[in-house]
């Protein structure tokens, strides 16, 4: 039996319709509103309706992805959902997506690597396919952070938006367009407190909460910024070195959309032109693990990549975790 490759054959994304601009964040002092765009690059974000939950966003992204390939959900072997804002603590949010889209032959499970989760999902799917365990895997990343944000916290609330992205991966005997060349997954749990929702798990169950703000997402912004720049640029360089890729071969850098200034710093540290960095953070904000898959979908238009072009996807986030993957056309 010859070598099996993993090929990315379709992408999809879904953003809720409701657009919220910085000036609509009236709970904050108006003198400070300009800081949002200045410090993050964010102008607007999408916010889900109260009736929508994370699986609803994932379902729409899944439909759009399958539709592009005209593939039936029943042909899927597995659904991997990356989310750190699940519908419920249990069961896995992925199972509601699986049943709703009619993926009757697929097993489905969640992974939580926070903002790195989309790329972690691609890495896991790649292993399933290359090992022969699966033929076709749908990776979805869906996050609905607006439910977990403290509306009074200026250091988190303006950053985030809701959304979902999806990629369809398939086994291929040939090295055709869209091959996953290599994925690197990294973690450092000593930074587990840097990005977190403190309450609601077994460490601090809801019945033992003394501070109401512990139910909300929080992060140490300065440390996250330094971590993202250091590890984001380091893993790109590592991936390029391990795959023998030159800067000239890189067509796009699809990085986690946390902050435009982080993207600029990574561009500067790696020496890769900022023009190659896909930017969606200005209009969608930080959509957590969904951000890389949404950004990939934005550039996945027919004819956008030609043979030999390489795309690097890179993400960094809670855990702490970071990841990168290289796709070759």
């Amino acid at each position, binding site marked *: 039996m010859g070598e099996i490759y993993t090929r990315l054959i379709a992408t999809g994304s879904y953003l809720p319709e409701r657009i919220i601009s910085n000036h609509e964040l009236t709970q904050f*002092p108006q003198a400070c509103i300009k*800081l949002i765009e200045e410090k993050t690059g964010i102008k607007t974000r999408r916010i889900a309706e109260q009736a929508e939950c994370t699986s609803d966003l994932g379902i729409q992204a899944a439909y759009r992805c399958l539709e592009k390939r005209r593939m039936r959900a029943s042909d899927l072997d597995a659904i991997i959902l990356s989310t750190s804002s699940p519908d419920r603590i249990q069961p896995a949010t992925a199972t509601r997506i699986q049943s709703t889209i009619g993926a009757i032959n697929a097993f489905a499970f969640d992974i939580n690597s926070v903002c790195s989760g989309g790329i972690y999902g691609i890495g896991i799917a790649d292993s399933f396919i290359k090992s022969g365990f699966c033929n076709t895997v749908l990776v979805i990343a869906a996050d609905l952070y607006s439910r977990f944000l403290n509306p009074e916290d200026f*250091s988190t609330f303006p950053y985030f938006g809701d959304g979902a992205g999806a990629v369809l991966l398939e086994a291929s005997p040939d090295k055709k367009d869209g091959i996953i060349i290599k994925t690197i997954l990294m973690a450092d749990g000593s930074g587990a407190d840097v990005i977190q929702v403190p309450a609601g798990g077994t460490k601090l169950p809801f019945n033992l909460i003394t501070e109401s703000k512990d139910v909300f997402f929080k992060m*140490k912004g300065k440390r996250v910024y330094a971590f993202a720049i250091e590890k984001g640029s380091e893993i790109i360089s590592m991936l390029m070195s391990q795959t023998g890729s030159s800067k000239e071969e890189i067509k796009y850098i699809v990085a986690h959309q946390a902050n435009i200034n982080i993207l600029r710093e990574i561009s500067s540290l790696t020496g890769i032109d900022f023009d190659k960095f896909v930017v969606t953070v200005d209009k969608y904000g930080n959509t957590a693990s969904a951000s890389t898959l949404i950004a990939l979908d934005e550039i996945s238009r027919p004819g956008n990549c030609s043979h030999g072009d390489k795309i690097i996807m890179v993400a960094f986030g809670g855990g702490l975790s970071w990841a990168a993957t290289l796709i070759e056309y």
Partner: protein
Amino acid sequence: MGGYFNRILKRSIKMNNMIKAIKNAFPDFDESQYTGDLMLGDIPDWDSMNSVNFLNELEDNFNVDLNDIILNGNQTLSDVAAIIKNSNPKKNK
């Protein structure tokens, strides 16, 4: 004598309010760092986004209106105290 103790008491309440505001915005702040000369940029996890949370805490703890103020890392806690002293009382929303 009573005036002297009242002044000391008043100063101590203000200091407690300031420490409370800092700790609420920056939970890793070590109280032993507290001096008027401490630059805001030297508070652990200080950044421009968190500075807005600090302003909100100052408003709540001192009951003043700081709506038009923007703080930066080069200011000291004494500068902040002066801003509070010169600010208007908070209007009830």
